[in-house]
């Protein structure tokens, strides 16, 4: 049969079984890998070798620890995004909120090192608190702008990213510049009491364990609390939400406090658990990758743990591909984007069936 636009039809699915849904998601990821394989071929790299390098991210013990490490900030940011995305509030500002969290944590460390005002035992707890609060406050701004003045949140959160990144750079170039760094834009190196310990035996930041706990908490909030109920109602229909007596300002504010706060914790993990200090442009896109993680997880906080771990591995693979096969680091970006495109396509296929000339 000839394939023309005329005999391809889309039919809305009324219901979808869990198996079909999972199958479509898995197929999406497989397709992404297949297309990436073609890309590797075009770049003159044996796809099998490339896939092998990727698998290593999860089998090689050192790389595995790395995957967990890099998956941790993704997990925190993605968990926060899942909350606001359920509300149909498009926070693309996780990047900026991560940076603000990192800044808050580094601020505490700098204060601790310079003045010694904070006892060693309280350093990490104060860093957690400060990172959460600054991230939350930074996210609250676009929430209030949207609720009170109908400012489009995609624009406001995106713009705030640049402000946060440049502010962070100003700090490491200026006031927080490490005197011992020979002019490199770095903050002081975090002392041991300000570093998140590794997971015993496996390695990788124990922040990931905290992240798993947080994902269960987020799951509970979304499915078992009155706030979660309001979130679902408002996300589906803001008119019904108003009719039911819910306050949009309150809901969007709480959601963004959670979202920004968790992204802030992601920033803390980044500076304290991975880099060990604050550097210029230290987040380098974790906040954007977290958007893909949230969608890959189907906005389910428990699935996000797996998705974040896989994406952490993907980031590590990027480095491996660079070192081992001489591929450019942007290959990983392309790969990430491919996964997002296929994830979105499979979301579409979960809603519609494609029928070609009468047969599926």
């Amino acid at each position: 049969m000839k394939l023309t636009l005329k005999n391809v039809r889309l039919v809305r699915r009324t219901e979808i079984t869990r198996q079909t849904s999972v199958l479509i998601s898995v197929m999406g990821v497989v397709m992404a890998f297949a297309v990436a394989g073609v890309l590797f071929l075009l770049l003159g790299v044996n796809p099998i070798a490339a896939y092998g390098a990727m698998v290593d991210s999860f089998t090689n013990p050192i790389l595995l620890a790395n995957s967990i490490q890099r998956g941790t900030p993704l997990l925190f940011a993605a968990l926060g995004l899942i909350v606001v995305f359920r509300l149909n509030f498009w926070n693309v500002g996780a990047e900026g909120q991560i940076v603000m969290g990192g800044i808050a944590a580094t601020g505490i460390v700098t204060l601790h090192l310079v003045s010694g005002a904070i006892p060693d035992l309280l350093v990490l707890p104060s860093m957690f608190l400060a990172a959460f609060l600054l991230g939350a406050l930074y996210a609250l701004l676009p929430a209030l702008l949207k609720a009170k003045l109908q400012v489009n949140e995609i624009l406001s959160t995106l713009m705030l990213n640049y402000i946060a990144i440049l502010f962070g750079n100003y700090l490491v170039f200026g006031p927080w510049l490490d005197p011992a760094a020979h002019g490199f834009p770095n903050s002081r190196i975090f002392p041991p009491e300000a570093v998140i310990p590794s997971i015993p035996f496996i390695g990788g930041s124990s922040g990931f364990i905290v992240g798993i706990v947080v994902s269960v908490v987020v799951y509970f909030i979304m499915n078992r609390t009155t706030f979660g109920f309001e979130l679902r109602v408002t996300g589906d229909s803001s008119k019904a939400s108003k009719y039911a007596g819910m306050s949009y300002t309150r809901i969007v504010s709480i959601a963004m406090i959670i979202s920004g706060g968790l992204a802030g914790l992601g920033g803390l993990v980044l500076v304290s658990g991975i880099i060990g200090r604050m550097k210029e442009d230290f987040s380098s896109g974790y906040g954007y990758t977290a958007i893909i993680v949230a969608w890959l997880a189907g906005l389910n906080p428990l699935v996000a743990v797996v998705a974040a771990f896989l994406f952490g591995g993907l980031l590590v693979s990027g480095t491996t591909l660079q070192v081992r096969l001489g591929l450019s680091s942007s290959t990983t970006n392309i790969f990430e984007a491919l996964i997002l495109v296929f994830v979105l396509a499979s979301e579409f296929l979960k809603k519609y069936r494609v029928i070609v000339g009468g047969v599926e």
Partner: protein
Amino acid sequence: MEASPKVALSPGDLLVELKGVSKQFPEVLAVDHVDFQLRRGEIHALLGENGAGKTTLMNILYGIFRPTSGTVFVKGNVASIHSPRDSIKLGIGMVHQHLKVVEPHTVVENIILGLKEPRYVLNLMDATQRVKALAEKYGLPVDPNSRIWQLSIGERQRVEILKVLYRDADILIMDEPTSVLTPQETKELFASLVKMKEEGKGIVFITHKMREVFELSDRVTVMRKGNVVATLDTKEAEEHTLARLMVGRDVLFQIERVAVKAGKDILAVDDVSALNDKGLQALKGVSIRIRGGEILGVAGVAGNGQKELTEAISGLRHTTSGHVTIDGIDVTNRSPKFIFEQKLAFVPEERMGLGAVPSLSVADNLALKSYRYPPYSRRSVVDRTFIQDKALGLVKEFDITTPAVTTPAKFLSGGNLQKVVLARELSGRAASEPPKVIVASYPTRGLDVGATEFVQKSLLKYRERGAAVLIVSEELDELLMLSDRIIVLFDGRIMGTLLRDQFNVEEIGLMMAGHKSAGGKGT
């Protein structure tokens, strides 16, 4: 000149013949092997409940849908109609239920919109003359140079009809044209349609109102669930037969309404004004008092402030002046939550998306307003088991047909969805607290006869229990049947109040058209 070739046909000839026409939509067979004929010089009523397939069938003829199977003959020839452009060429015109006119343009501009001729030079003078002549001939008075936004709904409908006549259509499809008209406008419309019929045009008149069938039509085709169940000469048809054919069972035309001794004032609306969504004054100093055990019917053509009134009472719309009190408590411009807590039940006009959340389960929709109070939730943690059990109870009590209480609301039929909204609103925060005030907007619109009966009975039941009830409806029959008093809204003002023993369709109709009540007493 003529767009369609004129074939010499005498009265009685078939203008349209549909043979075995079906239309399959993804989930439903909307039209199932239907045969239908339209003769020259007849008004053919197409009667059926909402969702029976009447509009779908006519949309096939007009070229909006393509039939899944079957053949369409127009004036004796097989017609392959791909779009309204094709059907207009064949002399078919359709006036939709929701009028499709361009508001900032003039009447003439709207009428010639989309015409292929004249191609380069627009001669509005000629067109204006022709529109005037047509308007006069068929008794469709409207000023060709007015802009659409200046016209009433009835006048806009005339523009749509003129548009069809301007294209020399001899097959006219009218889709529930009277739903937006006052009784007087309806009479005028019927007179015009009869004139067209006498000229040899064929008219398909879609309706679900029995009265109109007998008043206007020569033949009637009854549809039910996508099938044609009968085609009869109207003269030989009986109201009860038609009703039974339409519904599939015997219908009670009156439901029991007992006398209730009204109590004290529960709902008081004092001189309330409010803006509509466009920021224009839509409610201009309306005052209402409803006592416990009393039903106040609000009549009027849609868009005359009904929506703004119900929203101002329920807290969804800010008032610009005036006061609303419920049982002595001032609720003016308070939050919907506060007003709900004063025991207001609000059945809104828009069920899906406002009254119910499509992707949420039936159980969650039933808990939409009470989720924040114990025993639905305690210390911000919801009790899922209680919500499920409560839902099971309400589903039983209100006879809601749903596969399960976990089924998303979007899979429910209109009638069952309305029952969900009704069940939630009438049950309030807890079953022991019946509502003090019930505001119901178009509570039976689009429902089948069974569901309509159920909704009306429920409203009467709560009236007997002492609630103050406000019903907005476009079905005059419904208001006459249920109300203790009727007010008529026009242009955001109350035109008059009629007590039950003064109910008079003629007078209500005049008030709907903007005439102040002569004899009605204010309250």
